[in-house]
């Protein structure tokens, strides 16, 4: 480390240092009977899932089964999609996510999201981090600098880029870009991270690095991750939910702790999916 880190980390990786406000087993996000339709096409039908705090929940399932749709409901990114209607209920802590009175900007600050394709803004590395912080009311330069360093350190990028913070973020490698995006989300100290296939656009080495990083975020952050890679789900997740297209819309057909999911699947399709017969 080149400079001593004087400001305490936003969410220390060692979860024992600051006690978490809730015990980790308490359900944190509840969805109940969630329906999503794009115009006339129903993408999700009656999905109920509870997500536990501080855990990694993996969403798996074949393409088009509604995993991304589910994820984008949680931070109301569905608002941006024309003709997209969401019904049902989502409870996040005390917040009713789908209520029109919910402050979505603040909601999205608390629920960060990482996309499949790394998507840094076409700015410098520094500005990629400064810009969201400023928008959320942090104007003090010293605080901002500290946060930049902290979040970059957290994703293991600080040593790689500290001397070129002012060069374009688009010049970074794919894996570095993805870690920058994670740092950008972390800098806002969210409580939940939604990840939509965060490793699948990366080469195997970068993918491994990002995967380790995500695993290290377990505890301080609640993570909901879509993945097509069952081995990855098995390695990382505490809980797995299987989405399946049934009767023309996406549903969760099985939701279990990881061990149970892989060793004692309840549903016939789950077993076939795990064995690679279907999906």
């Amino acid at each position, binding site marked *: 480390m080149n400079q001593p880190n004087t400001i305490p980390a936003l969410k220390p990786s060692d979860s024992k240092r600051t006690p978490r406000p809730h015990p980790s087993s308490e359900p944190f996000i509840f969805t109940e009977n969630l329906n999503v339709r794009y115009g006339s096409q129903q993408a999700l039908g009656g999905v109920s899932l509870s997500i536990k705090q501080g855990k990694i929940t993996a969403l798996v399932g074949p393409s088009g089964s509604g995993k991304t749709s589910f994820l984008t409901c949680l931070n109301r*990114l569905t608002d*941006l999609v*024309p003709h997209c209607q969401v019904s049902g209920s989502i409870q996040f802590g005390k917040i009713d996510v789908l209520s029109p009175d919910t402050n979505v900007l603040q*909601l*999205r600050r608390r629920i960060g999201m990482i996309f499949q394709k790394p*998507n840094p803004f076409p700015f410098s590395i520094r500005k990629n981090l400064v810009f969201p912080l400023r928008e959320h009311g942090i104007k003090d330069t010293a605080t901002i600098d500290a946060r930049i360093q902290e979040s970059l350190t957290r994703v293991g990028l600080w040593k790689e880029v500290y001397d070129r913070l002012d060069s374009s973020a688009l010049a970074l490698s794919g894996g570095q870009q993805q870690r920058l995006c994670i740092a950008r989300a972390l800098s806002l100290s969210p409580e939940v991270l939604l990840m939509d296939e965060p490793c699948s656009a990366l080469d195997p080495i970068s993918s491994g690095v990002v995967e380790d990083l995500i695993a290290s975020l377990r505890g301080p952050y609640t993570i909901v991750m879509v993945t097509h890679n069952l081995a990855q789900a098995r390695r990382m997740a505490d809980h797995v939910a299987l989405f399946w297209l049934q009767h023309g819309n996406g549903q969760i057909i099985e939701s279990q702790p990881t061990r149970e999911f892989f060793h004692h699947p309840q549903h016939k399709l789950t077993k076939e999916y795990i064995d690679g017969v279907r999906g």
Partner: protein
Amino acid sequence: MSSHHQAIQDKLAMGITWSVAMLLMSTFLWLFSDIVIHGISGVSWEFLTARPLNAGREGGIAPILVSTALILMVCMAIALPIGLGTAILLSELTHQFGWMSNLIRRSLDVLAGIPSIVFGLFGNAFFCITLGLGFSIVSGGLTLACMVLPILIRSTEEGFRALPADYRLSAAALGLSQASTLISLLIPAAMPAMLAGFILGLGRAIAETAALIFTSGYVDRMPESLWDSGRALSIHIYDLSMNVPGGNANAYATALVLITLLFIINAGAQAIGHRWSSKRVLVA
């Protein structure tokens, strides 16, 4: 036999297109060279800085350059913000009132096809008379603003549409408001397209004559304010060649000045177009 036949047809088509293209090139080169040859001797520093004398037969075009610049300024000062706002609405917020934006887009398509003389009639009736602005630089500039708006909007809108959807999603996912996403991210990223539209519009405006004859007027004095009448370069050419016997020499020189300005504008547009396609990274 048939392939032999085809080869002959291909040769024939090739010959025809080549000769048409060469004919076209040489005609236009004839036009350019005629204007350069006859105009070059008239253009000098003095010509650009002196006032016209003897109805423009002698002297220079200083007040005309100033009027032209002022008309363009008014035009762009009005058209740019309205064009930017409309383009943003059409590209970023369409899903709210789809039919309204459709209507606006349709109306702009039609507007783009309206002859400039009709803009002139409208400008005369609305700006000069109804709004009481009279024959003035403001009236001319406003009329031109209506004219270049579709060009500005189309180019800017395309610029916004060309931006990756990722930008909007990732900005929203960070909890940024739509206003800040636009101001800090999308507008800077779409800047080259806006600039290209601006330059296109400028080219269109500076080339315009018919819309200005009865809005900004004919007066070739140095304008004292935006409410004075002012004569644009193109009108000066028209007036010298049609109404002033013996005005051809200065008309040639003025035409050369006008064409040179357009060359510069065109080169600017191409430079931007080039930069835009090759390097779309903004480091800020």
